[in-house]
């Protein structure tokens, strides 16, 4: 028998959103809160990122949920672990961990320096690895069938000029989802990703002063860029205990049909 429940209700759930200062992370945090969850917001750096996370915090407070903000240096596995431990202690456990860091870089492969490659891999991929590793540790400690959600890019599976470093990092995230979903599946922990196409904040990769850049926005079947609030619903579905309990290792495209273009 199906459970007698509101499938998409997150009431009483404790969620942590890493990269809450990014548009996708902020949208996910707001959606979790709107669905009833308490939310810990982690900004990656102690600068204006905190101010952006604070705006999200105010919105969530207005919804009457418990919300707190933290700074998490995702380039250091130890920092991810320690901060997550602190979050879990202060919130009374963790049910949902979402992670949405994004550092886009575009330059020809032969001009990409060691340092740039390391930085792109660190922020886009290694951070997600640390988050999954730490979330698994937390969920296992409490024997919780927790939910892990990573935000990634369609570039992880397809090509575009001058994006070799960034696309490689996200390709690694795609496989992190599959590999860790397999490894954690026995404990009921699910790992999924939302793969974003062209979103309306992505001026860094879709240059609208460029004719080709403008044309790229006509490539999705919906013929437009996506909005941040269009990420939230999918994030809630993938976080809800009874709505997606048999879905794991999946990369869910939220891209308006962009991947159908050829």
């Amino acid at each position: 028998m199906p459970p007698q429940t509101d499938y998409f209700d997150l009431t009483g759930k404790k969620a942590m959103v890493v990269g809450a200062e990014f548009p996708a992370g902020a949208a996910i945090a707001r959606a979790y809160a709107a669905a009833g969850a308490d939310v810990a917001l982690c900004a990656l750096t102690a600068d204006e990122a905190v101010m952006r996370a604070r705006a999200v915090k105010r919105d969530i407070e207005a919804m009457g949920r418990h919300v707190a903000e933290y700074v998490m240096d995702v380039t250091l596995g130890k920092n991810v672990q320690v901060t997550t431990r602190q979050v879990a202690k202060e919130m009374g456990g963790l049910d949902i961990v979402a992670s949405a860091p994004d550092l886009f870089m575009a330059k020809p492969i032969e001009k990409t320096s060691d340092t740039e490659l390391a930085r792109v891999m660190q922020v886009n991929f290694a951070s997600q690895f640390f988050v999954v590793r730490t979330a698994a540790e937390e969920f296992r400690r409490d024997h919780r069938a927790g939910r892990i959600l990573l935000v990634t890019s369609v570039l992880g599976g397809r090509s575009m000029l001058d994006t070799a470093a960034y696309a490689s990092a996200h390709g690694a995230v795609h496989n992190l989802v599959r590999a860790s979903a397999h490894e954690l599946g026995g404990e009921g922990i699910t790992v999924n990703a939302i793969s974003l196409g062209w979103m309306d904040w992505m001026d860094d990769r879709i240059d609208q002063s460029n004719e080709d850049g403008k044309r790229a926005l006509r490539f999705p079947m919906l013929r437009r860029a996506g909005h941040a609030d269009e990420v939230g619903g999918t994030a809630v579905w993938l976080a809800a205990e009874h709505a997606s309990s048999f879905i794991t290792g999946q990369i869910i495209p939220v891209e308006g049909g962009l991947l159908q273009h050829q």
Partner: protein
Amino acid sequence: MQEQFRLDGKVVIVTGGGRGLGRGMAHALAAAGAKVMISARTKEQLDRTVQEIRDAGGVASSFAGDMTDSAQVNAMVDACVAEYGGLDVCFANAGIGGGTDAEFWEYPDWAFEDVLGRNLKSNFYTCRAAAKVMVEQGRGGVLVLTSSAGGHRASKRWAYATAKGGVLSLTKVLSGMLAGHGIRVNSISPGIVAQNDPVDEQDAARRAQQGTFVPANRVGAWWEMGPLAVWLASDASSYVTGTDIAIDGGMMNAGLAPVSYRPQHEI
């Protein structure tokens, strides 16, 4: 190493082998040493391609028939076995648009049946007839031509794309069912590959324009299908089965933005 790519003594069928990509594959397979039987509906095209192969020192014969009729497909395989004593590799390559241009919600039954008949049922008939011989032999190879339109949006060609999607599934399930019989089954997905050499400068210019949509910055040539066909038919691919190989100049990997679009963003 080179001998792994040889097909000496192997018997190969290429349906739709009179022209276009089938002709390209038939030429290369014969050059690698295979005895090739090509089939198509148009006798003149078959005769010309057979003559070309023979002129190049190869062994080839033809079967004029309609691959949408299972009786004719069976007769083709029978004729091949009668002439060459067996069948080692079968290329189910025949297929052509068909149908009509009507909108999806107006699309008539006959047109959908027509497209499925030409592009999906014909491949089923060919694979079935080939498998019957190959299962008895305990070895063989089946190659199915699908298309980059198989899994993607194709606007006016939606019915064709649907049929090609079916062909892709057919390949996958067949590879599983026939693997235990020593039969490998793979598919080939051509992107934009020209059916022949350009006939004039205007034709060449049109192709150059089409090529701007491809990361390789050109469309494929019909004869480029040949080496791929030889590799998949030969022992060089003896552990490859159930897979789909794209020959598309990188087109299906791209498609997120105009091919020449170069974002610039420093960190």
